[in-house]
């Protein structure tokens, strides 16, 4: 009975293969810096200042410009700068690493954004599977960050997509290449470096 659906595909769609993808949570301390003095605070902290929005600069973590005066910073400690008008809040985003040669096929099932040209070190805010995300390009994949309360849902959804694509590629006779690891999902503890109150930098407005 299932042959009807498969028989339709007399000529394969290109590209054909769904090769392996890996999805893993990662711990990464994050900070939300905002306010008129935030660009100055970034510079005072000796961090690179992304000039344009929706772009990130790499440090030992990254610093992404999410607005004219807003930044998302992945760093062990928050930037500090006296006399500058800005606020800094710790963030407990759920961060997942989606890696593997077919990561774009996974994202294509959950996200309408055009990620054809998205590569390592690229940074973007987008929505996937109904969840707002930030994503950072890494080698052959993405780091995806979302609100921690949505982390379970996002991880579950992406895991299902990976599973289905892997199964579909198996049905079509395309096997994961031997060099690729089998898709895995290894839980790790979440970030442990945020505080309830803002880490104020400088004076009040």
């Amino acid at each position, binding site marked *: 009975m299932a042959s009807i*659906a498969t028989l339709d595909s007399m000529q394969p769609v290109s590209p054909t293969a769904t090769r392996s993808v890996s999805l893993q949570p990662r711990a990464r301390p994050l900070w939300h810096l905002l306010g008129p003095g935030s660009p100055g605070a970034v510079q005072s902290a000796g961090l690179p200042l992304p000039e344009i929005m929706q772009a990130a600069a790499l440090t030992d973590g990254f610093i992404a410009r999410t607005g004219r005066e807003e930044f998302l910073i992945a760093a062990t400690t928050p930037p500090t700068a006296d006399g500058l008008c800005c*606020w800094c809040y710790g963030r407990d985003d759920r961060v997942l690493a989606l890696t593997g040669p077919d990561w774009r096929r996974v994202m294509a099932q959950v996200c309408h954004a055009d990620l054809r040209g998205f590569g390592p070190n690229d940074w973007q805010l987008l929505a996937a599977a109904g969840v707002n995300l930030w994503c950072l390009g890494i080698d052959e994949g993405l780091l995806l960050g979302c609100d921690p309360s949505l982390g379970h849902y996002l991880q579950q959804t992406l895991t299902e997509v990976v599973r289905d694509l892997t199964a579909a590629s198996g049905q079509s006779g395309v096997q994961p290449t031997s060099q690729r690891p089998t898709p895995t999902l290894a839980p790790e503890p979440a970030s442990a470096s945020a505080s309830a109150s803002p880490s104020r930098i400088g004076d009040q407005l």
Partner: protein
Amino acid sequence: MSSRLTPQPFEWIERARPLRFTLEGEAIDALQGDCISSALWANGVRILGRSFKYHRPRGIFSLANHDINALFEYVDDTHLRGDVTPVPAGINLTACNTLGGLKQDRYRWLDQLSPALPVGFYYKVFHKPRWLFPFWERLLRHTAGLGQVRSSWRRRITPKWYEHCDLLVIGAGPAGMAAALTAAEAGADVILVDEHPHIGGSLDYQWTNDPGAEAPRATLKQGVTAHPRIRIMTATVAAGYYQDQWVPLAGPAGIAKTRSRALIVATGVIEQPAVFRNNDLPGVMLASAAQRLIARYAVKPCERAVLLVANAEGYRAALDLQAAGVELIAVVDLGEPAERGPLASKLAATGVEILAHHGLYAASGKDRLSAVSVAPLGADGSLDDTQERWLRCDGVILSVGWAPAAHLLYQAGATLGYSQTLEQFVPLELPPGIQAAGRVNGVFELQAQIEDGRRAARAALAELTAATDVASEIKTSGPASNHDLAQYRDPNAHSHPWPIVAHPKGKNFVDLDEDLQLEDLLQAAREGFDNIELLKRFSTVGMGPSQGKHANMNAIRVLAKVLGKAIDETGSTTARPFYHPLRLDDLAGRRFRVHQRSALHERHEQAGACFMEAGAWQRPEFYGKAEQREARVREEVAAVRGALGLIDVSTLGKIEVLGRDAARLLDAAYSMRMTRLKAGMTRYALMVDEAGVIIDDGIVGRLGEQQYYLTATSSHANATYRSLTRFALEWGLQVRLVNRTGQLSAMNLAGPNSRRLLAELIDIDLTDDAFPYLGLREATIGKIPARLMRVGFVGELGYEIHVPYHRGAELWDLLMRKGQPYGIRPFGVEAQRRLRMEKGHIIVGQDTDGLTTPFEVGMSWAVHLKKPFFVGQRSLQILKPGTARSLVGFELQPGHGWPEVAECHLVIVDGDIRGRVTSVAFSPARGRIIGMALVDSEVAGLGRTLPIRATDGVLVTATQVAMPFYDPDGLRQQADVQRQEVA
């Protein structure tokens, strides 16, 4: 397989892979690559289906996904189109729309009743008497045989996905392939899509025996297949065109929602039938259908054929049939064969009889074609039936014209007009980003189609490179200046302007989907339905499953003739998505049901929580097994009232409001004054909309001169954040907002022992002077940084504690461990609902509705109308004097014996609905059922009865009582009282 031919050069079948299936129990041998119809035809089966209305026998007609009378089903699926569905190995098929099988369909007698069932018959007859309509409706639906949907079908999940490209080319025929190759060679990322399982389009069935097609075929097919910038998607339908260049591509794996920077429509044309008596008999088919049968499936369409032609393509088909071994009885040309070009001469040289200026008058045969009559055309275009001559044949092949497959162009907003030269609609103006190429653009010669494809690609590339954000690697190649759509159009008509023949006995079908005859359309026009859209709706022409792909053009011609208007003046109907029907499971796709979990979710699971959905959140309703619900909830309520309870309130909205104008923003967004709020204090915050309707509530706390922190209801948190952001922008305020709803854990420690437990763990003074009721403090609990608000939603001494998400579980564990001596117990949403109800606190959205104002729920105290401004202020000023409804409290006497009262039960007074119950539950404090109801103010009044209609219709009499039901003076959440109690 009596009709199977020797191998054809481009056949789709795999002769080494035989298959077998059954049709109504009869075994059918087939080959891999066959469609159902081709396999049946190869086995000599000629009745493939029954028509919708008259149950007339039908065979292969188009073999192009429009043969909607040949529908099949099996235990796991229905409405399989025989002309495109691959042979399902091992399946037992039955035909849709029959009673007793294809051959012995017991509804076939309906054909004899057709004179008594004119157009509009159902509208005119079955609506009176009205009470009988359901009977007729059921009978007609059953008779129509729409296929059976079975609940036993296995569940299919076909996820949708997104695709992106620079250029999407729809149609992989000669024009489409040329366009794709041209664009890809210029550097564009191209998707080439075709609804058939193989690329090639008409090249591989219409130009099969043309030596001039060999070189372009090889170049184009190999070129697009090998090019790394071209992704080919076959067996995939471009189902529609949507705004911003979104095109759903529906294929075997599901729907790819595709967005391209540019789009080329090279969808070709749809061959149109001739209308004459019995033009639907099995054996009558379009020339392109016959060519597809031969070229794709190596099946001989018939043994003895008569062709009706009005173009060169008809002669090409005649030669193809001849090459396949079909005996050509005659070629009947509606015009002059000498004008058809060299193919007509070539055919004439074979000795086939060619009848110039003749037409077909009628076909005959029982269940399949056996003969057709021909007659000369008169000067007025009608047939001279006095000279009717019958020809024995088992095949009538029709090649009288085409209609463009321009549905996507229409949907994209293109303007099309009728070309008198081509006798078909052609694109006149195209919207930006859209191109048309090939036969859909009126280009018929093969080389011209290829050139037109290249032209369209160059035009698309020129648009792409003109865009500022285009990929820099795309380069225009060749001249980009000449984008004349009509450059390669044919100078001769390929369609006949009137391929329609009247017959006194009718059965000359214009629409095979709906069994509409010529007389039906003429009658509809006579009755006044003389607009093409009206004609469509009254007669249902074009409303069948093929959506008029074979009917609309002739219907327009009929109406134009009746009205004496030109085709352009008559107009055409709307071409809506989808181009072909899509599967519902494809449309459904993967289910994305967003759910949120607090940081304490695992703790709740460990404690045996029974979860409920609260918006997107999963929250503990209570802790215990489902069957213990009432007992556990009462225990949780008792714990909070008597000792200590802890509830997860992480779902509350949590928003930081920062900056110079933070106070101004909150003052204008909420109904209470916020500018005067002292640092370290909180205030109840009520938000109404412009109409004065309550939309949210929460707490606003002030942390500093320019720093506020507020909470919002769980379900409205994001909306409140968006509203505040919008207000700040619209009002030009210097404010920053940070929505920390998901980033913070929150829990409410409530009960007479709450302060005693907290005092052991916290680094600040909790005395009433240091941390008064409604106070806001930042502190450390254990080693956890926390923000605390002393509020009393449940009516007891309590502290709402907010901590970072990742510290939530740690704090929960600490409080639960250290709280054991104080009788701590986690409590869920249901206990909280009862506790707050005893206090008379409302829940926005439960005790209010989409019209409720603060005055109606007794919250005038929360509305400061003397403020300079707040959203909804003017409305509330107007509404205040005339409050129409009131939220009242009620109780039921213990042991009343009445059925259970539930939320949303109606308040009925003197037979009229006068309100509804908004909250109701057993109150341990009162020892009886209490509740709230939103009622007309006229029936409100302490001590008055409140008749409530329970589920089974019994009227339950409640008594209105004052609220709050519990601790009306609020003493239990005051520290002074607590000190006394503790002491």
